[in-house]
């Protein structure tokens, strides 16, 4: 596909045919070459056909092919003509990342890495059919859907500080009755469970500091031990997405007919069905925050067991699969928008109301996980993100190889041995998971971060090196 280079790291797909706006790719030449290898660019073009789209359809430097919409996609639509699309949010509603800081240093945990891997693996339910860390009944679940982290606080599974350091304080206003019953049945046994696939729990140490002032504002120090949690709304979110996809499909046959792919299905924001989905999606987001909080409690218990009383505080928790109602300036005018982020992280700079009080000068922490065995990063929301990406940046390394290919290319024992040589301990449900998630299966996270930093949409604060990785 022909692209126009707008400036360094910015490429554009000109507006043609059914597109309502141009498409934009934020990448350097190396990443663009990888992006060109799959269907991402065509999907960016498809995303630009969304009614009510403002400015551009956008894909982040870690972008790759998804269902209908690309992973790494951002699409902001206005409230008057806009639509909501489950495919523009992803099946795993509020899939996201949180980072916990501890009062432990690398010196203190050296020699105990394997024990730490084992205890975390045993305490945090991983994979299919293993239940959740927090037992809830049907009434509890309804309250979790309505109140998210607030329910966790009321039931002694969270501290007030945890809520203050979570996106939206861990609660979006919603009507939980819009969540399908089948979705609730899947979620009831999954509060505080990691799931599988690319979800993980990782013990990391702060290795490099790029911005000491902001690192200090986030409470981070060199050699400090952090814990990163990557999980989402589990079966509940997936079932919510699936059922609304089918409802949209049945309700809007003429829209389905006009789409290049069924997964692009949307509903006009003014319609009742669109509002129902928005409420269900927000409720599933609340569930995901409660889920990551449940995992946090399991981590706290594990650290206390192994190291005695440990201070474990939430640095931040941010989602990368969601649509949010936000105000942004478009052509000099402030507009109310619905910003779809699918595999893209909100990255608000200082001055925005979304930034938590504690970080109002530093800007919102942006949590970017690397692949197994590679660095992860904490960035701060960049000033240019408002102009370029509706306050968004990348969400990770992005997959490069298929799982089948990875299983052919890597052997679990080799991967594990090589990682151990670098003092990285991996505990996973199976050898296949280790092969599928081998570092070579993903794009180079350092390149992704470089583009984000150079564009000024998410700016480097610290880099973390993994020590213990637990996978579902």
């Amino acid at each position: 596909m022909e692209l126009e280079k707008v400036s360094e790291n910015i490429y554009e797909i000109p507006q043609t045919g059914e597109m309502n706006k141009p498409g934009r790719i934020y990448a350097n030449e190396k990443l663009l070459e990888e992006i060109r290898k799959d269907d991402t660019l065509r999907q960016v073009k498809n995303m630009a056909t969304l009614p009510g789209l403002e400015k551009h359809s956008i894909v982040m430097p870690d972008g790759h092919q998804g269902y209908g919409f690309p992973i790494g996609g951002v699409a902001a639509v206005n409230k008057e003509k806009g639509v909501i699309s489950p495919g523009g949010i992803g099946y795993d509603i509020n899939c996201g990342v949180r980072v916990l800081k501890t009062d432990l240093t690398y010196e203190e945990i050296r020699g105990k890495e394997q024990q730490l891997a084992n205890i975390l693996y045993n305490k945090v339910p991983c994979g299919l059919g293993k239940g959740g860390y927090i037992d809830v009944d049907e009434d509890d679940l309804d309250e979790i859907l309505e109140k998210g982290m607030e329910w966790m606080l009321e039931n002694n599974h969270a501290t007030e500080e945890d809520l203050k350091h979570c996106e939206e304080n861990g609660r979006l206003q919603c009507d939980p009755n819009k969540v399908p019953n089948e979705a609730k049945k899947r979620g009831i046994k999954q509060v505080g469970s990691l799931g599988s696939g690319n979800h993980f729990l990782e013990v990391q140490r702060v290795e490099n500091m790029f911005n000491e002032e902001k690192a200090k504002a986030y409470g981070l120090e060199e050699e400090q031990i952090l814990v990163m949690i990557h999980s989402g709304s589990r079966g509940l979110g997936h079932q919510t997405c699936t059922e609304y996809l089918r409802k949209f499909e049945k309700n809007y046959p003429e829209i389905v007919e006009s789409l290049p792919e069924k997964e692009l299905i949307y509903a006009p924001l003014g319609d009742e069905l669109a509002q129902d989905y928005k409420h269900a999606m927000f409720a599933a987001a609340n569930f995901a925050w409660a889920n990551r909080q449940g995992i946090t409690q399991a981590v706290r218990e594990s650290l206390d067991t192994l190291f005695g009383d440990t201070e474990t505080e939430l640095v931040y928790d941010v989602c990368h699969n969601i649509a949010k109602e936000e105000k942004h300036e478009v052509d000099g005018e402030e507009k109310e928008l619905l910003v779809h982020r699918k595999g893209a992280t909100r990255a608000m700079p200082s001055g925005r109301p979304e930034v938590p009080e504690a970080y109002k000068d530093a800007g919102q922490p942006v949590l970017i996980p690397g692949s197994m065995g590679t660095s992860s990063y904490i960035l701060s929301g960049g000033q240019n993100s408002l102009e370029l990406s509706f306050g968004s940046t990348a969400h990770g390394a992005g997959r490069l190889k298929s799982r089948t290919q990875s299983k052919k290319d890597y052997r679990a024992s080799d991967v594990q041995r090589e990682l151990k040589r670098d003092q990285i301990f991996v505990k996973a449900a199976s050898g296949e998971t280790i092969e599928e998630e081998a570092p070579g299966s993903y794009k180079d996270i350092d390149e992704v971060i470089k583009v984000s930093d150079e564009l000024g949409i998410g700016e480097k604060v610290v880099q973390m090196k993994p020590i213990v990785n637990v996978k579902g």
Partner: protein
Amino acid sequence: MGYEILEHTADEKFRATGQSLEEAFKEATKAFSEITKADKGKVKHNIKIQSENTEALLFDYLDKLIFLQDTEGVAVSHTENLNIEEKQHSYKIKADIITEPITPGMKLTDIKAPTYNEMKATYEDGKWILEAVLDI
């Protein structure tokens, strides 16, 4: 006729074929089971599904298998007595889904959702072809 697991960047894809639509769905169930990495099971679950076309039928059928795994704590093994009733704009499946209970220590893949991405449910060259990408 049979099934195969196909290449897909982020997720798992399969192709199942059959002389009849029933046979293709039986093969699709085996593909699903292989992706889950389940063993032969004995526990029987009766399911019923109704959809508006064959693609939707495949989507809803896979959705049902996933729902069963997540809510009953089982892994799908295969299907028996699978019957499809076809009327205009309506396809009904009745089937027994055979599963094995999940016990601690089992190493299974958690299939999270069916997708319409690259989906195929068509009759071509004398056989039914079902293709689907599963979100894992």
